[in-house]
């Protein structure tokens, strides 16, 4: 069975299961672009994506490209028991990044040592709330790309 059929990478990491609203995020990620849904009426960004704007109720939206810079808002280090693919890498970090372009737009992700390095590759000493980070993209399975994060000043 292919990894896509299993819903995991060959190493047992979960693949994103996009819904209709979220699909464009992943399509842009596959092209190496970090984009967030924005309202074409009132111009405000929103995340996660949804059918209409919670501020002006417009259904007109676009996907606006972000600079890819942000700061660590919080982080955790999961330890077992975990799903097997993750237990193999534990303890790894999971971070929440607040985007520099839009306060309040926060993305969950992983801080890694370089774009293709595994989860848990970053030195835990670099994990600090407020640390500036920048996005990188990693193809984790054929056709499936996720954003990863690198310290701006390692």
């Amino acid at each position, binding site marked *: 069975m292919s990894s896509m059929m299993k819903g995991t990478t060959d190493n047992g990491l*979960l693949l994103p299961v996009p819904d209709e609203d979220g699909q464009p995020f992943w399509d842009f990620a596959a092209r190496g672009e970090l984009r967030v849904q924005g309202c074409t009426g009132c111009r405000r960004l929103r995340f996660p994506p949804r059918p209409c704007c919670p501020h002006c109720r417009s259904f007109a939206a676009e996907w606006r490209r972000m600079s890819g810079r942000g700061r660590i808002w919080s982080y*955790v280090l999961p330890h077992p028991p975990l799903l097997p693919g993750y237990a193999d890498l534990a303890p790894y970090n999971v971070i929440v990044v607040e985007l520099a372009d839009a306060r309040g737009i926060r993305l969950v992700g992983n801080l890694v040592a370089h774009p293709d390095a595994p989860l848990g590759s970053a030195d835990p000493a670099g994990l600090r709330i407020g640390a500036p980070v920048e996005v990188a993209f990693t193809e984790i399975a054929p056709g499936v790309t996720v954003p990863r994060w690198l310290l701006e000043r390692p």
Partner: protein
Amino acid sequence: MTATLKDTTAIVGIGQTPFSRQLAASEKTLACQAVLAALDDAGISPSHVDAFASYSMETTDEVEIAKAIGAGDVTFFSRVGYGGGGSCATVAHLAAALTTGQATVGVAWRSRKRGSGPRPWRDTRAQLPVPGQWTRPYGLLRPADEIAMLARRYMHEYGATRDHFFNVALACRNRANQNPAAMMYERPLTRESYMASRWISEPLCLFDNCLETDGALACVIVAADRARDCRHRPVYVHSAAQGLPPQHHGMVNYWADDPLAGPSWTAARQLWKAADFGPADVDVAQIYDAFTPLIPLSLEGYGFCGRGEGAAFSEGGALELGGRLPVNTAGGGLSEAYVHGFNLINEGVRQLRGTSTAQVPGASTCLVTAGEGVPTSALLLRS
């Protein structure tokens, strides 16, 4: 003139099964045992039950319960969502139904074999009721991870420490050590063992996490006038509320403007608005504690202290018996049993009957809450 639920109904019966890591009986059997025990406690025949309320992750539905216990015509049944956020809402829905004449005897229950059964987060096929695409691929898999993320931010913003979380774990454990029904009855907790325990998701360690329990509980609710004829002193539902704040996202509430002010704040505003008393008048509280940080957050949300002061509130034994606000006096989810918070309701009733194993002398008001961090609910009970 707006109708009110204030003191119009009362909890008159409580029942439970043993709590254990593994029970032999099925969830359905445990549910029936707890429901029948609660009805026996109330002195009400199962044939008189005409209303049921449950909450999500319940595998036994009202059809199964009704036919097993021999209920008659059932005219009200509701199910609340959001797991541990729905516990108190079951009582709230029944109170509303009884007060508006839709039924006369209501039963709420929870039966779960989380001790020996599967862990929901292990399911890699089904999307959990959270926006999984934004979190799970990165290894943010379990409720412990999701809440740990908020806990770290809370520590950063307000100077909370692991010692504060230990204060919470210790208060619950100390009460469990007084409660023979608690899973941790004979297992004291020390600061040394807490600090040396293994991590589950840093900054949360083993003792910041609730137990894994097989067990079931139930309670019976009737109108206030009928309650006075039941076996025990009635425990009145004084106020009840659910809470879903603006831009809330469930367990992974990282996308709201203010992720550290969650559903408790919303439920609290409605709860106090409808009540004759305020936080300073609460004698004892049963606060949902799947994870220790939920208690400081809830203390803030329900107005026992100011924003960011919940951790400091726990200092000096404030949460212990004899402290400023004794909490989770049967041991809570951390040390009695984790049954999605229903044990907190039954313990609230025992406190106001005067029959708790860790009785707060003369307690006449009790706050019971469901989970902070998910769409939630809460009850103010009084004797």
